[in-house]
């Protein structure tokens, strides 16, 4: 513990000057909570995935190890393939295309706006984001209702059951509406970091809007774009809110992976199978995150290299 006595506190191994014991004592409660609510369930899921554990019945009392059978079953299950494909569509259309694009467009259009218009639009977009999902889901169910829904009244299409006839379109539009605020906020902040003199220079040389975006704006906010896409992809991939609108139906037509797991594990009671799918989903999440992080690092590493070699 001689290190704690370091008079200038510049010891790189112990910058806070606490000493190992006290540092451990301070972080212990947090680590305990993480262990109890994050690490343990994760390991429990890993274990469950190798059993035939069920919610009810004989296998609930006496689960039996089945090895990798759950995994082989899932991978060969056409329902799983279907669900995975729906999830990819859901992420691609609602997050990557919908939220990110719409969020950028709003941020770009409002970049010079001042006063009540900007505040109004931001407030409306944010409202969709901060409302509790149960409330939001109820509002959407009411809006899309076949008999007395607002949408049918607005479009003069009485009797159209939107959530049944176009379930995927409904949850895609819903998620765009719900999540665009985050992209908008992130891009708004990123756009303030684009030097106005560079934009003005491009304009002075006659660059049109697209050229200004391509040559000045995107190179500056590339990191923000990747970070945003990473976050919203993962959030959307794991999003369970659509269940509250379409319940995965009709007939599995909007059964994205989180809903599929819920149906399998809690509705059908096959906990072991559900745990196995959960783990596969976690792996997919990790792969997606790694791809984005790799793209981010490529960018930074590349710039560093240039600086070293003039």
């Amino acid at each position, binding site marked *: 513990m001689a290190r704690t006595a370091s008079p200038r506190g510049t010891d790189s191994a112990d910058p806070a000057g606490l000493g190992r014991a006290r540092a451990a004592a301070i972080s212990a409660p947090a680590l305990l909570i993480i262990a109890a609510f994050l690490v343990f369930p994760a390991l429990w899921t890993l274990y469950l995935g190798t059993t035939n554990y069920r919610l009810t019945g004989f296998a609930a009392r006496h689960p039996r190890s089945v090895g990798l059978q759950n995994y082989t079953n899932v991978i060969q299950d056409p329902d799983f393939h279907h669900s995975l494909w729906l999830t990819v569509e859901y992420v691609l259309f609602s997050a990557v295309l919908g939220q990110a694009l719409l969020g950028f467009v709003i941020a770009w259009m409002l970049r010079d706006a001042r006063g009540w218009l900007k505040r109004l639009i931001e407030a409306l977009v944010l409202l969709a984001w901060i409302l509790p999902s149960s409330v939001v889901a109820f509002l959407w169910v009411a809006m899309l209702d076949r008999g007395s829904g607002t949408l049918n009244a607005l479009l003069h299409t009485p009797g159209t059951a939107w959530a049944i006839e176009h379930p995927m379109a409904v949850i895609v539009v819903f998620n765009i509406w719900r999540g665009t605020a985050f992209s908008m906020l992130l891009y708004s902040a990123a756009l303030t970091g684009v030097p106005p003199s560079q934009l*003005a220079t491009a304009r*002075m040389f006659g660059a049109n809007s697209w050229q200004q975006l391509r040559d000045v704006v995107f190179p500056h906010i590339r990191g923000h774009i990747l970070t945003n896409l990473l976050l919203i992809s993962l959030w959307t991939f794991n999003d369970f809110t659509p269940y509250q609108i379409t319940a995965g139906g009709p007939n599995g037509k909007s059964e994205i992976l989180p809903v599929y797991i819920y149906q399998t594990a809690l509705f059908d009671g096959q906990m072991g199978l559900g745990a196995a799918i959960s783990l596969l989903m976690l792996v997919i999440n990790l792969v997606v995150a790694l791809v984005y992080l790799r793209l981010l690092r490529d960018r930074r590493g590349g710039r560093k290299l240039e600086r070293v070699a003039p």
Partner: protein
Amino acid sequence: MAQIRTVDLTKTFADAGGGVTALDALTLTIEDGEFFALLGPSGCGKTTLLRTLAGLETPSSGAVHIGEADVTRTPPGKRGVAMVFQDYALFPHMTVTENIAYPLRVRGVPKAQQREAVLAAAADLGLTGTDSTVGLLDRRPEALSGGQQQRVALARATAAKPSVFLFDEPLSNLDARLRLEARTFLKRLQRELAVTTVFVTHDQAEALALADRIAVMQSGRIRQLGTPREVYRRPANTFVASFIGSTPMNLLEGVVRDGRVLVADSEIAPPDGTGERLAERAAVVLGARPEYFRVSPDPLDGAFRGTVEVAENLGSSLLLTLDVSGTAVQVVVAEEDEPEPRATLWALPRKDRTLLYADGELVG
């Protein structure tokens, strides 16, 4: 190559307090090929004027003409104007070559021609051909010194072949030593290119050194328009008088008595030809630059008598602050003439360089 004319140019910015007038009915002609300075303290409207010429701001009323054309509503990219910003605004993700070629790329000029123009512009700006510039064209801006970055920005502007250059504080991002070098370089470049050039500065020395003509601005108005010599020798009002000159001009309040000016208990001869025009007992301000004094340890007729309060070494000369009956008068003396502390000196303003202001305006 073009003349620039503004007619009754007005720009007001709306804000909570009703609005700020940045440009107040400005009418100004900048001649073809001229090197023109907009000089003034911050908030005087000089940058707004430059940005309005560029098309980055739209005037509230009035017109801007470049050459024959009225460009008041013309977008910035179609005015034939190139602007170099204070921070140079080089694109960080492009190499020097790509930066210089940018205006041509935007216009869709073929690659081979772009390359040719880049090499020509780079050669003009001294970015090729010396040991220190080997490989410079393939570097990114962040790997360049401040001076090199400025030259790249200038090269990019010249590659656009504009009829007008606009520079926003062209020297203020350089350190002091580099600034003098860049100043000489800039003046030579402007002479060689002979392109009408307008630049904004808050540094009076920069404006005096570079410009053919200077517009000294305050609160959206031009307070004086003239050559550096005119503006320095005969500031049209006390604002310009106090703004121009690296050591500020002495502006001493006094009254007229018997054809002479009574200032700080001293009777000073007014400038030639003003004696008879001055009304008796009129309140005036006497202007005399510290450099234009004859200073002597012996009594001089019609001079200020004061004691040395502070002596500041300026290198080849000294700036003395004299206490003249409670009024501070600054004079510059040669380095050999350093006085003793608290010495009594007589300081006689040069009659042909003395100025007289009444109600803030030059009267003689």
